[in-house]
C-alpha cells in the first residue's frame, strides 16, 4: 500500500517535471497518469501494492474535489447575478454531452446488458467488488436484471 502510494507520487512528480520543462497546459497529474499507464501496459501486470493504493484512492475520489468546490463561496455574488444563463448553459450542455456519446456507443458497440456481470473478471482483486457493485447497481437500472448474451441476441 505504502509502496504503491510511493510509486503514484513518483509518477505524479515525473508528470510535473515534464509539464514544467515543456510549459504545457496539460496538468502534471494527467501527464503522470499517461506515463503510469504506459509503464503498466509495458510491464503487463499491476503490482499488488499499487493496485491497493489506487483502489483505495479511487473508491473515495469524490472527497478530493471538496476543497476546490468550497471555493464557490468566493463568487457567490457574480454567480447570483447571471444565474439563469450559466445554470441553463451547464445543465443543457452536460445533458447533451452525455446523450451524444451514449447514443453513439449504443449504436456502434451494441448494447450488451451482461457486461461485467457474468463475464471474465477484470482482475482478481476487483472481481469481488464488481459482484457486490453489480447487485447494488441493479437497483439503479430501470431495465430488468442482466441476462446471458446467448439469450439476448
Amino acid at each position, binding site marked *: 500500500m505504502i509502496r504503491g502510494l510511493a510509486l*503514484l507520487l513518483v509518477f*505524479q512528480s515525473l508528470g510535473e517535471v515534464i509539464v514544467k520543462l515543456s510549459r*504545457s*497546459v*496539460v*496538468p502534471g*497529474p*494527467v501527464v*503522470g*497518469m*499517461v506515463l*503510469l499507464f504506459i509503464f503498466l501496459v509495458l510491464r503487463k501486470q*499491476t503490482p499488488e501494492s499499487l493496485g491497493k493504493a*489506487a483502489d483505495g*484512492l*479511487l473508491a473515495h*475520489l*469524490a*472527497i478530493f*474535489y*471538496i*476543497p*476546490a*468546490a*468550497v471555493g*464557490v463561496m*468566493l463568487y457567490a455574488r457574480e*454567480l447570483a447575478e*447571471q444565474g439563469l*444563463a*450559466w445554470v441553463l*448553459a*451547464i445543465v*443543457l*450542455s*452536460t*445533458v*447533451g*454531452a*452525455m*446523450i*451524444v*456519446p*451514449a447514443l*453513439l*456507443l449504443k449504436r*456502434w*458497440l451494441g*448494447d450488451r446488458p451482461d457486461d*461485467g456481470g457474468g463475464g471474465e473478471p*477484470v482482475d482478481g482483486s*476487483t472481481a469481488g467488488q*464488481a459482484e457486490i*457493485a453489480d447487485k*447494488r*447497481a441493479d437497483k*439503479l*437500472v*430501470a431495465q430488468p436484471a*442482466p441476462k446471458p448474451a446467448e439469450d439476448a441476441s
Partner: protein
Amino acid sequence: MKPGVGLPNLVEIWVYLSATPLFGLTLTLVAYVAADALYQRFDKHPFVNPVLISVSAIVAVLAFSGVPYRQYFEGAQFVHFLLGTATVALAVPLARLWSELRERALPLLLAVLLGGTASVILAVGTARLLGASDVFVASLVAKSVTAPIAVGIAEQVGGSPTLAAVFTLMTGIVGALVATPLLNALGLKDWSARGFAVGVAAHGMGTARAFSVHPRAGAYASLAMGLHGILGALLLPFAGKLIL
C-alpha cells in the same frame, strides 16, 4: 499559563483551532464521512450526492463561523493535493482494461470528440442567448474538461480561471445527478458505455459517481475523462478562438 484562568476559555481554544490546518482538514473529512454515510444509506441515490452535501455543509459552517475560505484551505489543501495523486491512480483501472480498449479505440475517440463538441456548442450557445457576459461565456468553453485542464484553457480563450473552476465543478455535480436517470431513459445497459458517456460529459465528479456504481463504469469514465482532457487541451484553445 496565565494565573487566574481556571476553566479553559472556549473562545480562545476556538480561535487557536480555527487558525490551524487541523480545522480545515477535520471539517473536510468529517463532512465527507457524514455525507458518504447518507449516500450509502440512500442506496447511492444520485440526488444524495456526497460532494454537493459536504460542500453545502462546509460553506454553511464557514459562513456561520466567519472563517474565511483561505484559512479553511490551509488545512483542506492536504486533501486537495491528493486529487493529483488520485488522477495518476486512474491509470491502474485503465491498464487492467487495456486489451479491450485497444479494440474499441475508434468508437471511443469519436464519442469523445462529438460529445465534447456538443458540450461546447450547447454551453456557449445557451449562455449567449441568455445574455451572459463575455467572461462568463469564455469560462464555459471547457466546462466538460477535467478542472485543472479547463482552468488552463479558459485562460487561453479570455475566460476567468476561477469562474472556469466553478463551472467545471458545477458540471461535475450536474453530471453526477442526471447520469443514472438520463442513461436509463436512453435504455443504455452496458456499464462500459454508461461510464464512458458520464466521463465525457462530467469528468472527475462523474467518474467518482461511476466508480461508486460499478467498477467497469468507473474505469471507462476515467478513460473518457483522460481522453477529453488531452483532446480538450489540444483542440479547445483553437476552437474557442473561432467561436468566441
